[in-house]
């Protein structure tokens, strides 16, 4: 198997050298990148590019830099091989930026599917590198290939770290390629995410606030077909069972989805199949509610430790009423990633994780922020993991 290596940015003479985290060159590069990206002609058609431009704006990078203690005597690890996911067009840039900010040289493998966003980003990076005759030139290499085990083997043995964006299948297949004894893997595996809302606290919310909440919930879910690892599949309603509020929530969501969501019809039968499959195979379903085919809602009467298999797409949710947090502690395992919340004290949720010795839940964020990627992601403190500290006495 020797598929051709297609260099979208850079060439075969890529560097594996480390340098200082948050280097001046990187910060300037990102600043230009952010500004120029925002100026491209069709940016309004690409909300993901807009978000990317916003994410790497000077202000955000400076904030990250401030939080990172520069006195720590750190330097990057060296060369990073990034294997990025097939379905999110802009994910590979975030992975690359993580590598750049931490002071590393990067070889980024992008998905074989040709997204327009990938082309836009790559030609922009090329342009900036050329114009500025940048020292980063051989530290940013972006490639596309399929079926080339030789290359994967070679680069795996040479690099100092691999960042592998899952699914589990990709991670396991890359485990067949050895890395150096000192090298590390950061695996972003398949995860399960959920949401906790306290209905009795939410009863005090105004109509406007509920609408706003529902919009944010929509962004966490429907915006990515409910298929991001941080999109919630399960909604736990905490405390008093407020039927009225729940009804209002779903009704508002339905009204929003009806207007905003472009549900591809080819997925409809698949979604319906999933629903039938759950109905036929689970024994803990209380009832199922359908809002046409836009929202499927499966209410559970009991919840168990296999709950992480209850995973919906395109707006298929599981719902459970829980008297208190203690009742759900047994379902949490290391599959659980993001917990989004509303009407619950975040410190209480933090306590829930710490005091119950939970192996899962890496993120506790308000509803609406489930997709906000940062340098603390999936439980990994990326800045520290991708750089090494030097002890100086």
């Amino acid at each position, binding site marked *: 198997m020797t598929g051709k290596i297609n260099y979208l940015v850079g060439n075969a003479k890529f560097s594996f050298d480390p340098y200082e985290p948050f280097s001046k060159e990187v910060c300037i590069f990102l600043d230009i990148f952010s500004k120029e990206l925002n100026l491209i002609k069709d940016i309004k058609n690409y909300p993901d590019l807009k978000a990317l431009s916003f994410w790497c704006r000077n202000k955000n990078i400076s904030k990250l830099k401030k939080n990172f203690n520069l006195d720590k005597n750190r330097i990057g690890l060296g060369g990073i091989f990034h294997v990025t*996911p*097939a*379905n*999110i067009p802009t*994910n590979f840039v975030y992975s690359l930026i993580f590598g750049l900010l931490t002071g590393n040289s990067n070889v980024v493998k992008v998905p074989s*599917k040709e997204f327009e966003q990938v082309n836009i980003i790559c030609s922009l990076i090329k342009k900036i590198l050329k114009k500025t005759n940048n020292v980063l030139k051989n530290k940013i290499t972006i490639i596309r290939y399929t079926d080339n085990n030789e290359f994967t083997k070679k680069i795996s043995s040479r690099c100092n770290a691999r960042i592998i*964006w*899952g*699914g*589990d*299948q*990709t991670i396991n297949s890359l485990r067949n390629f050895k890395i150096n004894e000192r090298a590390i893997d950061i695996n*972003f595996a*398949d*995860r399960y995410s959920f949401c906790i809302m306290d209905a009795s606290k939410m009863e005090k919310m105004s109509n406007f606030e509920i609408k706003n909440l529902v919009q944010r919930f929509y962004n966490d879910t429907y*915006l*990515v*077909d*409910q*298929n*991001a*690892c941080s*999109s919630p599949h399960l909604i736990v309603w905490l405390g008093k069972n407020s039927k009225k509020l729940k009804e209002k929530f779903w009704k508002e969501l339905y009204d929003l989805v009806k207007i905003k969501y472009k*549900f*591809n*019809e*080819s*997925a*409809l*039968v*698949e979604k*319906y*199949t999933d*629903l*039938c*499959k759950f*109905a*036929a*195979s689970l024994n803990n*379903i209380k*009832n*199922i509610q*359908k809002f*046409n*085919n836009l929202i499927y809602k499966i209410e559970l009467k009991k919840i168990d430790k296999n709950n992480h298999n209850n*995973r919906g*797409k*395109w707006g298929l949710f599981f719902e459970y009423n829980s008297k208190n947090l203690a009742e759900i502690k047994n379902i949490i395992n290391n599959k659980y990633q993001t917990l989004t919340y509303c009407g619950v004290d975040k410190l209480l949720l933090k306590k829930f994780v710490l005091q119950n010795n939970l192996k899962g839940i890496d993120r506790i964020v308000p509803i609406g922020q489930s997709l906000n990627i940062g340098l603390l992601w999936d439980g990994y403190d990326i800045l520290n993991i991708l750089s090494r500290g030097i002890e100086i006495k």
Partner: protein
Amino acid sequence: MNNQNQFYKEIYRLTKYHYKNSKEYKKILNLLFPGKIKKTIENIPFIPAKLFKDIKLKSISDKKVFKILQSSGTSGGKTSKIYLDKQNAQKQTFVLNEIASKILGKQRLPMLIIDEKKNISDPKQFDAKTAAILGFSLFGNSHHYLIKEKKIDYKTLNNFMEKYSNSTFFIFGFTSYVYEFLIKSINNSKLKKNFSNAVLIHGGGWKKMEKIKISNEIFKKKLKEKLKLENIFNYYGLIEQTGSIFFECRKCSCFVTSKYSDVLIRDKNFKILNNNKVGFIQLLSLLPKSYPGHSILTEDMGEIIENNCNLCFGKKKFLVHGRAEKSEIRGCSDV
């Protein structure tokens, strides 16, 4: 109209029967079609064809399983499994016979099969293609197979044609195979006879044809031009409803329902659509009794046709437009 009422009474009875005899089907109905089982056409419960890939669905005990039909799964995908008891298997043969004899007549005809001869290792378990070939083989005799080691076996073909092509003979194959071998690869200079006396029945796999943009019309035209083959009948059917298949009308090329089958078209909210409106095809069949496959929602798009065709006049008929274009799901999970 009376026939229609009778048909829906039967479907209602089948729904009740499967509700009683399949635990999984009962759970689905309880949760997704709550309340009493409805008799009206639009309220007849339906399950998706794909569900047979995920869940073991049958209304008979393990002991009574006589045969298992399997869909030919796409690369790496799961396959559907259809559990038949002896009675259901016989009924499929009986009904297929009744429907096909309208085209082929009651006499068995010499038969050319557009496939390779396979040894069936397990006579109780086979895939959709093998099931179709075996099913249609009952209408033929002197069976010859066209393909050998992925190539046309001209010796066998010419032998067959020498002997039988002077009177009516029967050709059967999957649509994509017929295209591949009888349209694309066949070399006319190696043929000693033409196919003007042939009746071709083909079905399955328009997906491949859509990809290469060959319509039913072009397909027919090419066979006529190349081989003088004119009697061509496309059929449409689900492995979940083997037996009650739909043949195209010789004149207007619509698929025609029989007294054993019906078709409904649903929109994206699963509301029933009027004639000449495109939506998801739901197929109904009186045959499935050992498994709950009598009312199936397919992934195919189609429409019920109202026209003035005088050949299939008075019958319900429909066109299949293939599958909705798959778009890539967003998100990062590949599960």
